[in-house]
């Protein structure tokens, strides 16, 4: 399936922000915005839903904590109790302070790595994937807004985008 989109180039993030707000006011659907760096407030201006990555991070952290606790319990208490520095070696609770750094590290490890993997999966990124970026200049100093074209509103949209300060406007077929 392919659809027609208008790609408008901007050279300044403030101009882009006001353009996004204007286009949304006119009830056009913004497919995507490509920027060379994160623009603060752009997600809100585009009306994107807040990310749920934070919730997954919390859950992954809990998994990490549970894994670390179980692991330390099995290794140090059940499987091979050792007398280190005269510490009671048969009680998890009384040995717990020594395990806290491991629990903490595993919590962070699980949260961080699984969150990155989730992010890759959610944004459909994997090694050797062909870039979706329509114009290499958006990785340098240009901003690109992609607006969907429906039926006969192409000219109207072009005029609107020009009025918002776009430096280049291009209509293309987008492959999916």
């Amino acid at each position: 399936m392919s659809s027609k989109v208008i790609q408008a180039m901007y050279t300044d993030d403030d101009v882009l922000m006001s353009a996004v707000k204007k286009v949304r006011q006119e009830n056009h659907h913004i497919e995507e915005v490509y920027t060379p760096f994160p623009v603060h407030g752009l997600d809100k201006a585009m009306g994107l839903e807040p990310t749920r990555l934070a919730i997954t991070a919390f859950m992954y952290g809990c998994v990490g904590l549970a894994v670390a606790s179980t692991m330390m319990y099995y290794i140090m208490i059940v499987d091979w109790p050792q007398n280190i520095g005269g510490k009671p070696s048969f009680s998890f609770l009384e040995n717990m302070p020594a395990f806290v750094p491991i629990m903490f590290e595993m919590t962070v490890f699980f949260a961080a790595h699984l969150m990155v993997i989730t992010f890759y999966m959610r944004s459909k990124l994997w090694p050797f994937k062909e870039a979706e970026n329509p114009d290499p200049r958006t990785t340098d100093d240009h901003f690109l807004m992609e607006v969907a074209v429906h039926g006969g509103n192409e000219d109207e949209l072009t005029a609107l985008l020009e009025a918002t300060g776009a430096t280049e406007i291009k209509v293309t077929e987008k492959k999916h």
Partner: protein
Amino acid sequence: MVLGMLLVVWSFASTPSTVEEMKAQEASHGHGGHGEKASHDDGKTAHHGDQKTDAHATDAHAAEAGHHDSAKHDEHKLTQLKNKPWAAIYIAAFFFMMISLGVLAFYAIQRAAQAGWSPVLFRVMEGITAYIIPGTISIIILLILCLPSLHLNHLFHWMDPDLVTPGHDHFDKLTYGKKGWLNPTGFIIRAVIYSSIWIAYRVISRKLSLRQDESSDNSNFKKNFRLAAVFLVLFLISESMMSWDWIMSFDHHWFSTLFGWYVFASMFVSGITVIALVTIYLKSKGLLPYVNDSHLHDLAKFMFGVSIFWTYLWFSQFMLIWYSNIPEEVTYFITRIEDYNLPFFGMIALNLIFPLLILMNSDYKRLNWIIVIAGVVILFGHYIDVFNMVMPATVGTHWSLGMPEIGGVLFFLGLFIFVVFTTLTKAPLLAKRNPFIEESKQFHY
């Protein structure tokens, strides 16, 4: 301005009421004590200094009537009980001084970093740091009252001259070795030096900040920036030494190398919490129109982050000592776990688990009532933290959260509120000529 005046009247009203409470509390103790005084005259009243300690001592003694252990043990217990109201007042005085000092450090960091988000809160911070002057003065007065020559109390046990007299029954080699640092003269001189550094920065910085409002260029702002950088260096040194002197020397055989940081984390998080609470209060009165959710959100992030930082330091200190299990070090935690189990572990729930869970959600950091609840819990938790640092070495097992503690807190709370809100009325609440004020007004996340 009218609202500001109301605040002053309100804070005036709050101070006397707490003082009265203090009086009432002391009177009741005195009464209870005198009732029993006649029946007990076994020489233990020899240590009585002024009337106040006298009342407490006899009261304490009365409470222990019927328990006749060895005379030495009684003597020891009596000393500890006599210390109790002093320790309670000391904790409260230190706690509020510490809040003010934490805010001063936070303020200096904002100045030195030339932060863009916070200038709308500068006047609030300056108001809170005004308490550094009465706060440190009351601490120094308490320290002077602790001097052994006055015989009022035995808060700082190392001050006992017997410990450092070679050949004496109570001669203590370890304390003798530390004599170069731990001696009453140097102690008071150092206290005055620390306080002067903090008060000097606070007074000069406030003056420059007010002058900036009226000036036509940014020279005052730049001076304040340089001053903040110098102060932060001096602050870290003086704060660290202060924590050895004013807290760690209670346990004069014990030492911890990260104690200064640990106390700093505690004061920093309490200070930031108080900034947030005062800001919410003033905003609810409509006095801070430029402070928005995002400013509070940032303060709440600091509360969250520094709470974790505090726990990190607390645990680092605890785990190393627990693991190595060296007798002279580990006694510190053994007394706390055996005799102070509830406050010691309860503090972790209050200072880590509760703020961690409640402030983790991004949206909750913008809700005033959540911040207020978290703030009150954090402040209580850090009061308990100071309590745990001071009480075990001064009153031993005879701790409680009773009238002396509540009275002390209320007294210094009243003084704190009075000083802070009086200062807040003295200057416009917006630092209007700060070069970053526009950025701060527009700040949003």
